[in-house]
């Protein structure tokens, strides 16, 4: 797990995400650019009208993975601060499920970092979405996180 060297925010919340507070946190006089991503509940999925969503997470691991993403952003890009929040529980149409804000002195770094963050979050953070429709509910199609194929020094199973 990455140690938080930087003044970042990574959080899982059950109440509405406080988007303004996250932007405020990353915004500093030495910056000039902030990109944000706001992911929120669409009113339909594959042309079926969505009623609402439930999000669940492997909370301790999800937080650790979110902190890893923030740490990676600092390694890869010349950015200043990162805020990543994901909401859990029941979400209605239009409610924000994930919000990411990245500040930087120059826009290119903030931009690339913001995209890397949301793409990596969707691929590696253990959170699951169940979609509720008039006629039933399904677990959303997801992405299989990349996991080691074999333990480097695994003893053969007896």
């Amino acid at each position, binding site marked *: *797990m990455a140690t938080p060297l930087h003044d970042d925010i990574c959080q899982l919340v059950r109440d509405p995400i406080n988007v303004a507070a996250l932007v405020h946190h990353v915004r500093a006089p030495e910056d000039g650019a902030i990109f944000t991503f706001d*992911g929120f509940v669409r009113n339909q999925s594959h042309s079926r009208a969505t009623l609402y969503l439930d*999000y*669940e*997470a*492997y909370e*301790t*691991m*999800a937080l*650790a993975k979110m902190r890893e993403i923030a740490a990676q952003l600092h390694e890869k890009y010349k950015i200043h601060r990162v805020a990543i929040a*994901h909401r859990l529980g029941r979400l209605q149409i239009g409610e924000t*499920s*994930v919000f990411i804000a990245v500040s930087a002195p120059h826009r290119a770094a903030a931009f690339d970092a913001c995209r890397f963050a*949301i793409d990596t*979050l*969707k*691929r*590696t*953070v*253990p*959170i*699951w*979405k*169940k979609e509720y429709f008039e006629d039933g509910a399904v*677990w*959303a*199609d*997801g*992405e*299989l*996180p*990349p*996991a*080691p*194929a*074999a*333990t480097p020094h*695994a*003893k053969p*199973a*007896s």
Partner: protein
Amino acid sequence: MATVSQSISLKVLFFGRLKEIVGHAEESLASTDAATIEQLFALYAARHPELAKFRPSLVASRNQEFAAWDTPLHTGDEVAFLPPVSGG
């Protein structure tokens, strides 16, 4: 070379549709037959045959890190079986 099987205590977590199949999110297990994550999964697949078909579309974690299926387990480990993630 024969290995003496010892009983190890594990915390095992299920998420998403796996939780619905198993019927709960979390359990404690003491077993002599779970030397690796793969073997642990096999124990549950024996109890809940529907689990087996999800095996190709799962990843596993050990102590909150993604882990290979051949990862050896030790007492006190927390193992989770994770369907494709769909956060965001």
